[in-house]
């Protein structure tokens, strides 16, 4: 499996360390909502398909990457630095009004 690090280029998976689920959001540090913390620390979905993951390029530039990987095929559809803004969600395709013939 290769992961294309935005800085280092395509590298073998052995250079990377899996750093967990990419979907979780950390509650406000001062929050005492145990359910929210519990969800953040423990709740994981086990997706058969595209999954958001965090990988660290520990054997390279050491940055953390937000990776979307298909758990069935290992196909990686997107990689970005966690510092970079996530790509805007795809807009619903709007049909162009057809020119009248």
């Amino acid at each position, binding site marked *: 499996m290769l992961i294309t690090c935005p*800085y*280092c*280029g395509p*590298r*073998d998976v*052995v*250079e990377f360390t899996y750093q967990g689920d990419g979907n979780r959001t950390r509650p406000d540090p001062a929050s005492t909502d145990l359910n929210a913390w519990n969800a953040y620390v423990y709740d994981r979905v086990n997706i058969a398909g595209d999954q958001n993951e965090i990988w660290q390029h*520990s*054997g*390279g*530039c*050491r*940055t953390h990457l937000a990776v979307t990987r298909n758990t069935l095929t290992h196909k990686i559809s997107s990689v970005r*630095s966690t*510092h970079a803004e996530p790509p805007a969600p795809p807009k619903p395709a709007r049909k162009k009004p057809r020119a009248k013939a």
Partner: protein
Amino acid sequence: MAETLSPLDTVLRAGRYANTAAKIGVTLSEVSPGSIVQVAAWPDTEAKVLEGIAKTTKLKLGGEPGAGAVSGNVAAFGIAPGRFLVISEDEGLADRLLGAIPATVGSVTDLSHGRTAIRIEGEKAEWLLAKFFAVDFSKAKFPVGRGVSTNHHDVFAQIQRRTENCFEVYVFRSFARSFWKALCHGAEENGYEVR
């Protein structure tokens, strides 16, 4: 600098080794630069850090990943987004860089003792590196000056192409002796010289 000890002192013996019937494929040596310094920018200060490096070393680095430059007794290359390794034969580079790069612009970390620099030179240098690192070192993909961060199992390495057939590899000091032995072992089939 006071009298120092390299981790390679007890294993580095000048001479020609192994398959010397063949042409010597690579020459291995330890470079002892006076300074190895990491400079790192904040997300919005990379240009200022590059300015600081240029002011201190006269090296102009491009913005692309791994971009590097070599000139006289100084060299530098990108090792991570906004991070650069700057090497000089002279001591005291960290202090000079600190003068040009205040904390608001970035951080300067002296690694002069923490990294050991090994030079791999010769016709088989690319071949030898290919035994350890899954990185394309061909001239087209890895031109002179370019640097890379990678690893060989537990040994983390930062590598810069100095000339067409010469690479410098920076490894953690504690791993240097093991890595040196592995390099020599890997170089045996081509015949190697230690300087």
